[in-house]
């Protein structure tokens, strides 16, 4: 089971590196959104610093959605999903490996790049540190919740649009507590740890719900 987990993880990482360069694309998309927002709001750095965590978090949510529709669809199309279903490893392990690979190629680059993008919205050093911490803890939740939607829409031809409608409402709690924790680090009455611990809890719950939900959805889609 560990072997198939590792094999699938390495396969997906290799595919991501060689085929789409999805990590780089996610980063560019992230940058594009962060660039767009000052055009809409005006270049006032004080305002941008105040809403900076919110901008970065919304960009992270959208960037997570970007490649999500291909998470299981690509495997469904070329038939490898059927082979994975037949393999002795339980589907939950397969989902876990695929989501982990997805997060490593889309979520982790955002986390690493967050301080850089924080500069664009004039975040203070504490703010940047908080952004990295909240994104590191929160983006796995987005990937796991998104996996349920991706599994449900794997066999649909125009799954991408429905996928966003399905998963965005469920990402609201992650967004709320991610932004709240980042804002708390910038100052305010709420201590940083309160929303941050809740964010961690949401990630853990999402990991369970996402893994079992996506595996059930893949079984139902047979």
């Amino acid at each position: 089971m560990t072997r198939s987990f590792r094999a699938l993880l390495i396969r997906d990482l290799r595919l991501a590196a060689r085929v789409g360069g999805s990590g780089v694309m996610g980063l560019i998309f992230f940058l594009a959104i962060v660039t767009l927002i000052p055009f809409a709001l005006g270049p006032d750095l004080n305002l941008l610093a105040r809403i900076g965590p919110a901008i970065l978090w919304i960009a992270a949510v959208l960037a997570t959605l970007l490649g999500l529709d291909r998470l299981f669809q690509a495997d469904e199309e070329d038939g490898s999903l059927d082979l994975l279903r037949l393999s002795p490893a339980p589907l939950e392990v397969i989902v876990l490996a695929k989501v982990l690979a997805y997060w490593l190629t889309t979520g982790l680059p955002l986390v690493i790049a967050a301080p850089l993008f924080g500069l664009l919205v004039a975040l203070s050093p504490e703010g940047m540190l908080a952004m990295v911490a909240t994104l590191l803890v929160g983006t796995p939740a987005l990937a796991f919740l998104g996996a349920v939607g991706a599994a449900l829409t794997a066999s649909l031809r125009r799954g991408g649009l429905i996928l966003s409608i399905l998963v965005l409402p469920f990402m609201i709690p992650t967004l709320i507590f991610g932004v709240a924790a980042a804002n708390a680090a910038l100052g305010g009455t709420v201590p940083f740890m309160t929303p941050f611990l809740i964010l961690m809890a949401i990630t853990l719950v999402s990991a369970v719900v996402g893994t079992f939900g996506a595996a059930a959805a893949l079984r139902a889609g047979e």
Partner: protein
Amino acid sequence: MIRELANPTRFMSLSGIALPWIGGLSAVVLVVGLYLAFFVAPADYQQGDTVRIMYVHVPAAWLGLFFYVTMAASAVGSLVWRHPLADVSQKAAAPIGAAFTLICLVTGSLWGKPMWGTYWVWDARLTSMLVLLLIYGGILALWNAIEEPNRAARAVSILTLVGAVNIPVVKFSVDWWNTLHQPASVFRMGGSTIHPSILVPLLVMAVGFTLLGVALHLSGMRTEILRRRVRTLTILEAERLDAGLAHPAPAGPAPIRTGAA
């Protein structure tokens, strides 16, 4: 009892008898409730006549949640027993629940304009209902996206149950989010106690709405069963025609198919 009802044919005959009664009863109760709400119940000393919107608003909110619970229960039936009637119940409940949620939001914002001076505020209650409407939208979209009814039912069941786990989390976080932004809420719900002169019409309306919801649900389920029968018959007919084309001479009976497609 449940086992007998679970047979779609039995369900069709029983619900055919029950439906006019439930529908008629809901009409009577709603007429009484509306009469009480408009002519008997007093106008609120602060809110004036706008308080009467509440008699529609509160039952609609309750039914919006009630139908999600119905869907979640049916989803368990779909996944565990693979029962076609549970699929049908789930599918019929989704648009009704979405409609009641929408009625709740619309009446709420109509009430909000004279009372709060704005159609929409990002109050925790309003926002959670809006998110519920979004989730209903996702469920309806998924129903429409998958053509094969059994597969659609299984996919939607999973989504509904994931939603059932997540809705309390969403509700909790929205509450938290709002209290963070607006510590002292200016919105008071009705006051500390509800006087019987308001409570009685409200309860009558709630009963009437629930009966209406049940009647709509039964009628929706009957329509869906008939729709599935038509679908199966169409497929059988198409197969018969196909077979007829392949063998010009009528060769035996039509292919036998058990279950829905």
